[in-house]
């Protein structure tokens, strides 16, 4: 059925809002990234990113951090998604509800929680030290890269869980059983039946994780301030008082969009290939 006029009008508020507050600002940002402070066209903002080792390190760190975080989230979320349907229905529902809770939780609250748990005098650190008689300077450092990835796992694992639980529930049990009855070994069942069915959802979940982590900075900022050099943190600092430089922030933002877009396109290509070779 074609959309009637009266119905198309219903899309107007959405269209106006997206145009005015999403697309127009992005356009302004893209244009400003090619201007200097006086409004003269220049490529300096981009050349500066290539010249300045701080920015290059930030990009590298962001890629590494997003990869680590996305992998932890993907593996953890796949495990929870695998386990949940194998529990009694009530526990199954309870676990999935619990794992949708972090999605609405403020990143700062989570930062606070992990400082209390794993800070220098953190409860968990004290417990482990007492339990094993470790010296005071041996502890898990929540302010290290490992710590930050762990804190983000609190968001990433649940995010992936929601995707993967749906995939595992849809996985046709009878297909798996048929393969077994035909004499397939467990690894063959995984290789030829389970993985091809799950792979598209897994890759889609992975892209969402990766894209989200590339832009994340709130929780990092609450944990370590600017001590960790990430692309999103650099952008944030260039929009706030101390190192205020909006054209530079704009150029860094455009680079960040480009990185996220290429990662999404890349993972999308892999997903299509997997789908094609899966034969399903």
């Amino acid at each position, binding site marked *: *059925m074609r959309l009637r006029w009266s119905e198309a009008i219903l899309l107007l508020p959405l269209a106006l809002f997206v145009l005015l507050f999403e697309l127009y*600002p992005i356009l302004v*940002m893209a244009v400003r990234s090619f201007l200097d402070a006086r409004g003269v066209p220049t490529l300096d903002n981009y050349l500066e990113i290539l010249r300045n080792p701080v920015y290059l390190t930030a990009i590298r760190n962001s890629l590494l951090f997003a990869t680590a975080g996305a992998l932890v989230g993907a593996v953890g979320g796949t495990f929870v998604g695998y386990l949940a349907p194998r529990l009694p229905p009530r526990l199954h529902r309870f676990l999935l509800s619990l794992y949708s809770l972090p999605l609405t939780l*403020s990143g700062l609250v989570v930062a*606070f*929680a992990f400082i209390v748990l794993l800070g220098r005098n953190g409860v968990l650190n004290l417990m482990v030290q007492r339990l094993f008689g470790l010296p005071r300077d041996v502890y898990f450092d929540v302010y290290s890269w490992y710590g930050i990835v762990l804190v983000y796992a609190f968001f990433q694992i649940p995010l992936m869980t929601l995707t993967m639980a749906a995939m595992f529930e849809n996985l046709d049990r009878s297909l798996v059983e048929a393969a077994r009855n035909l004499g397939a070994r467990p690894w063959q069942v995984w290789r030829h039946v389970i993985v091809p069915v799950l792979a598209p959802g897994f890759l889609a979940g992975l892209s969402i994780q990766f894209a989200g982590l590339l832009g994340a900075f709130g929780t990092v900022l609450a944990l370590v301030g600017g001590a960790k050099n990430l692309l999103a943190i650099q952008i944030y600092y260039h929009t706030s008082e101390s190192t205020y430089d909006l054209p530079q922030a704009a150029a860094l933002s455009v680079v960040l969009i480009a990185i996220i877009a290429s990662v999404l396109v890349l993972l999308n290509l892999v997903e299509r290939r997997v789908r094609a070779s899966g034969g399903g």
Partner: protein
Amino acid sequence: MRRLGPFRTIALVLLVAFIVVPISMPVIFSFSVYWQDILPEGFTLRWYAKFLAKPATSRSLGVSLMVATSAVLLNLLIAVPAGYAISRMKGRARALTTAVARVLPLVLPPVIVGTALLLAFSKPPLAFSGTIGMVIVAHTLLGFPFMIRNTLASFDTLDIDTLSEAAASLGANLWQRLRWVIVPNVLPGVLSGALLVFAISIGEFEVTSMVAGFEAQTLPLQLFQQIRNDMRIASAISAFLVYVSLICFLGMTWLGGHLRERRG
């Protein structure tokens, strides 16, 4: 209950602890007098009183509630009509619209939205940045994808034409059809989206910290400062944010059960 076996039991306990333990930290901290060792000591409501007595934090509570409510209302105004219209679309137009709604927020994370809003709205005649209005707009943007997904799902399960015709053939006028047929069927999904938007807005820090000036200090912005200054007040703010999340979450679960019951 069926026996689970040792592997599943241990896995389940660890997985539950992974979520429950961190969430309970701010709550326990906020009620304890003193917590320097493994176990917290004493019980007090002093930190909540301090949170409410301190002008900066009590004011930010009002700002946050106002911003979240406005973001929900704006989202209702925008996403409900859009959800209805999209549910009536077919084929490529629909695929395109939903793809844009899904992919755009992925490619444009909060840090980008914040920078772009700052750049576009910091100069006259459009100097909104630093105002509460700008924060409301930012939170509405962030809530969009969730609100549209929820309302669209509600409208999709509803065969509006058939139901409306049936109601009309029974002599129901437009108002009655809306009141008795469409609204009750769509309401749980829409409300659940509204709760989600509210919860996201109350906790949002990233974009807010970029576009909010001094007058638009929300609770998370105060929390950010207090994590450095006073862990006690920080614990009370954090705990409050946990309560809001929990309430919204319970509401959504209840609405979800309501929906399942009706459809099942």
